[in-house]
């Protein structure tokens, strides 16, 4: 379902700019927030709004790290695996996280709560090792701090 209110809101934003397609990422983000991921249905709706072809939009959607073409969990955890986080014990942290959630990188927990994805340096190397949970940064992390974080997120969604 694509609520009329959201559709109108996006349409208004598009009408304000000179070239509809400059709003492509914003529209994709809005639909992704609504559906939880950028579904085929959302792709078609975005294409209509932006006067672009579904293919043109898929070219964008498949390119970017923060656009999910497949369902993801309620909390998307992007773990930085670039140099500084990796040097600051990041590898053990990843192993711990996979173990704790009982999934591999790229997977979602059975309860649909957590998705684990790798990400390149997120610009918080002064707080390494760092991760993003739904784009909010956490760091520097220890395994204890990570356990606490996961517990809190679990609690918040029961």
């Amino acid at each position: 379902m694509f609520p009329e209110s959201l559709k109108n809101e996006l349409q208004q934003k598009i009408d304000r700019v000179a070239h509809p397609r400059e709003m492509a990422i914003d529209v994709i983000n809005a639909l992704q927030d609504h559906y939880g991921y950028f579904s085929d249905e959302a792709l078609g709706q975005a294409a209509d709004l932006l006067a672009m072809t579904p293919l043109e939009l898929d070219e964008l959607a498949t390119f970017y790290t923060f656009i999910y073409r497949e369902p993801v969990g309620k909390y998307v955890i992007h773990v930085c695996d670039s140099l500084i986080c990796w040097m600051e014990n990041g590898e053990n942290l990843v192993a711990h996280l996979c173990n704790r959630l009982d999934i591999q990188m790229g997977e979602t927990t059975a309860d649909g709560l957590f998705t684990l994805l790798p990400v390149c340096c997120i610009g918080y190397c002064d707080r390494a090792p760092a991760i993003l949970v739904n784009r909010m940064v956490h760091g520097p992390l220890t395994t204890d701090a990570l356990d606490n974080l996961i517990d809190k997120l679990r609690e918040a969604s029961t």
Partner: protein
Amino acid sequence: MSGPYPQVLLKHRKPDRITTLAEYRQAGGYEALHRVLTSEDAAAVKAELADAVLLGRGGAGFPAGIKVQTVAEDAPFPRYVVCNADEMEPGTFKDRVFLHAEPHMLIEGITLAAFSIRAAHGIIFIRPEYESAARILEREIGIAHREGLLGDGIFGSEFSFDIDVHRSGGRYICGEVTAQINALQGIRPNPKQPPPYATDKGLWGQPTLVNNVETLACIPHIVNKGAQWFKDLALTPEAAGTKLFCISGKVNKPGCHELPLGIKLSEIIEDFCGGMKDGATFKGCLPGGASTGFLTVDHYHIAMDFDALKKVGNRLGTGAIMVFDHHTCMVDVTINLTEFFARESCGWCTPCREGFPYLLDLLRRIENGQGEADFLPMIKTMCQHLWKSYCAFAPGGVASIESLIVNFEDEVMAHIEGRGCPFKK
């Protein structure tokens, strides 16, 4: 301890919040814009920028004064200014620190740059990881509008200007100018080889100035205090201005510091970062992000400026210093960096798309004890091929590999001859 050094961009930095508009104006903010707009003198801004030798802070070090002059007087309208806040170069977080400190300094800088080329629209292109900075910018742009510092007829002049914040979907290549222009137009962000240059035909085919956050933030100060003052900020005669260095890795206190260009690497590490972590020994560093080559102990006292690094075949890049100690395996470090480039390659051209996985395979085999001496010439040849790629991504990506082979050849050979990593025994 040396210094204290003059602070320009981060002088009023606070631990937990931005400098508000009122505070910024109290400290002389928007005076440069006021003076320039009431005198209507765009040529003077351009001349001062050129004299100041402000080299681009986004990694390539191109003179900002020359770039504004490449927008021809009779170029078509509308014209655009794009502020590059993508900052995806691994190790780099200076723009993030700055954006959380002085959003109005950036807004003023963008507006001055826009006035100098008579641009009517500004765009801040920002990475999705910096959502909090994006929100700060949107809010402060709104405030600047209400105060008449943006919008129609700024300071009662004829000049009207707006700024929008554009969020990226998140890919390293979007930091490259031509890819960024594609991204802004809702086109898959593969780079496009110039000509035409962006200042000639950029966004929507119109003249577009693209500059880094830090570069633009310097402009109000140069306009206020003059080119000579800016040059005198640096410690070496060839350099000009301060630089936001961000230091991470094996130091006691990682962080971002505004320091004069030309400051010694050793001084940065010892006096501003609390020295090496846990008393370890300095082994080397990357001076300016993942796209620069390794410095070694031989360079420990090098002057951190564009020229000095060029002289040793390296680059200042973004000023992101990533420090390694004597426990760090440089082959392992290079593997991590190469994984980054293999993953972030936009895939448009073959040398880059195919070359990084190939190099990664050879490096991993060396690390795992399956390396052979003839891997070294194979790696060198492949790096040379990568220099022929379509954009500057690939030459940046091989910088660490090439310098590994030159500066840490003994360590690579120890892996090959010892059939494994000497640091993992």
